[in-house]
């Protein structure tokens, strides 16, 4: 599954990083504590968060996350957007909650394959 598949299936607005819509998604991750995401998020995860500041791109880049979805109608600041474009990491937007989106994504098959 690619980021663009999720974007279109759930009709999510692309706020930035549109160049990265073909990135592969293998899992989902929910979290708002950056130290936790740094420690635990898996490569290729689509990251659901309320955090909208620039640091989320550093985390996403380091952890090679597939995309960031900002929940609860949050929007990224201009510098966050610019950084996303630079890194080629999509930021998608949703009015829904983390719980809601995690539920829908999980149901749609976004989950790590059991090894």
């Amino acid at each position, binding site marked *: 599954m690619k980021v663009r598949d999720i974007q279109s299936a759930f009709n999510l607005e692309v706020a930035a990083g549109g160049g990265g819509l073909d990135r592969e998604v293998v899992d989902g991750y929910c979290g708002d*504590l*950056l*130290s936790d995401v740094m420690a635990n998020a898996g490569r290729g995860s689509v990251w659901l968060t*309320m955090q*909208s500041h620039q640091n989320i791109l550093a985390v996403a880049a380091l952890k090679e996350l597939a995309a960031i979805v900002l929940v609860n109608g*949050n929007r990224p600041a201009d510098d966050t957007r610019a950084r996303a474009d630079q890194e080629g990491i999509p930021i998608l937007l949703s009015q829904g909650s983390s719980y809601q989106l995690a539920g829908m994504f999980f149901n749609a098959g976004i989950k790590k394959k059991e090894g």
Partner: protein
Amino acid sequence: MRVIREFKIKAKDFIHAGEGSMEIRKALKSLNLNAELVRRISICAYEAEMNVVIHGGDGTMSMALDDTGVVIEVTDNGSGIDDIDLALKEGYTTAGVEAQQMGFGAGMGLPNMVRNSDFFKIESEKDYGTYLIMCFKFNK
């Protein structure tokens, strides 16, 4: 107005942060006030207390009441708020990484207080401190 509770708040003391507000909540519940009113006052007290812990120097919080309503006052001797209008905007925060790791710093504190109180006033002076007062009426 009679002050019925008063608490000291210590800056950066995340372990005891919230104790004052939880005490206030307990006191309000024992007065058999309307549950929604207790909720609103507790939210305001808690957000104010957390703000002092996160941003302020040491501070105090007091609760007073009479037959018209409840008043919460919070003062601290922290570094003050540079731009109050900005601070009142949802999502705006000057909280550091430490606060964020504690689950705060989302920039919702002051807006939540304004939203949940019947009257809200804040004054702050750089390097001197901050004072806020919130009033809640019975039987609105």
